[in-house]
């Protein structure tokens, strides 16, 4: 059984589990599934907040911070007890393109060539780690949600603004992957 869990899970198992999070959170406490709002609560709780976006009672939304803390510990547990000893299998075409672009180490879930402390102090690493992170925070809050809040929760409730957001996420990602990454990866 444990061996089975340690193997990479198929898309349909993961899809069902993630989809079920929607009714579970609703039934447990009327909570709309969403993760990027946690970033807002963290700002409201920890940073200067004299503008209207952060003037609300974040303590009422504290369930969301418990939820993301859980996600963190899920990562810890997966690393300690459920690690797959095999290398991650990557599509041949993606692998070939990445190797042409100086992403050599594909042994881990993240490319260590980019996401490491040494890399952080290079221009390439700075763009991936810092600029990328900034855009994730700024973009999701500007869009009013991320993949979970819009693509999963919003679409589950048949909200067309969430479809607009989801299409925009995909277009943004595709544009950067095809037209920008080839240049930054070579930096």
């Amino acid at each position, binding site marked *: 059984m444990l061996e089975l869990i340690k193997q990479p899970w198929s*898309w349909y198992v993961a*899809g*069902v589990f*993630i*989809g079920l999070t*929607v009714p579970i*959170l*609703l*039934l447990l*406490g*009327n909570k709309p*599934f969403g*993760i*990027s709002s*946690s*970033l807002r609560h963290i*700002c409201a709780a920890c940073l200067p907040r004299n503008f*209207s976006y952060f003037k609300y009672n974040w303590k009422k939304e504290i369930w969301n911070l*418990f*939820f*993301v803390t*859980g*996600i*963190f510990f*899920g*990562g*810890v*547990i997966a690393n300690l007890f*459920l690690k797959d000893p095999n290398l991650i299998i990557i*599509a041949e075409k*993606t692998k070939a393109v990445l190797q042409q672009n100086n992403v050599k180490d594909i042994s881990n*879930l*993240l*490319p260590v060539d980019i996401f490491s402390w040494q890399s*952080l102090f290079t221009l390439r690493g700075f763009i*991936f*780690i810092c600029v*990328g*992170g900034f*855009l*994730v*925070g700024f*973009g999701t809050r*500007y*869009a009013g949600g*991320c*993949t*979970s809040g*819009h693509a*999963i929760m*919003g679409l*589950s409730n048949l909200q*067309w603004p969430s479809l*607009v957001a989801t299409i*925009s*996420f995909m277009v*943004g*990602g595709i*544009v*950067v992957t095809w037209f920008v990454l080839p240049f930054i990866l070579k930096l």
Partner: protein
Amino acid sequence: MTQKNNNTTENLDEFKENTESVIYSSENVFSKNIKFLVVGIFFGITFVKAEIISWFRIQEMFRFDSFHMYGVIGTAVVVGIISVFIIKKLKLKTITGEEIKIEPKKFSKGQIYGGLLFGFGWALTGACPGPLFAQMGYGFSVVVITFLFAVLGTWVYGYLQNKLPH
């Protein structure tokens, strides 16, 4: 009888909320929210085990070289649609007997501009906000920096909100 029970739970909820505002004891907050932590743990494990936290899987998705991520998101949406449909159809209530309400999403241009900007970031970091937490937990310590920049991005959005087109 049910009516009476409902009233009692409602009163109890009200009572709980009142006491919360007066003493806001940390113990109470913890016991009320621990269930969301547990859901988060299962969710985080799923993120790691289905390799959704992998930068490579996101690259495959944006390069159209693998069905994996499309399968994950597609299945999740179908399961979500069916679940929400059932909840509405059967008028299911929360475990504390509250009526389930889902706020509709209002359209704003932010969903396009912000959506594109998040897409740029998603392709760079290989992570949406959820996987960021799981990546940190899994031991990619440098992702703490990605996360701090995401918090900074959120703060800057709050700062600029009124000046941005919506």
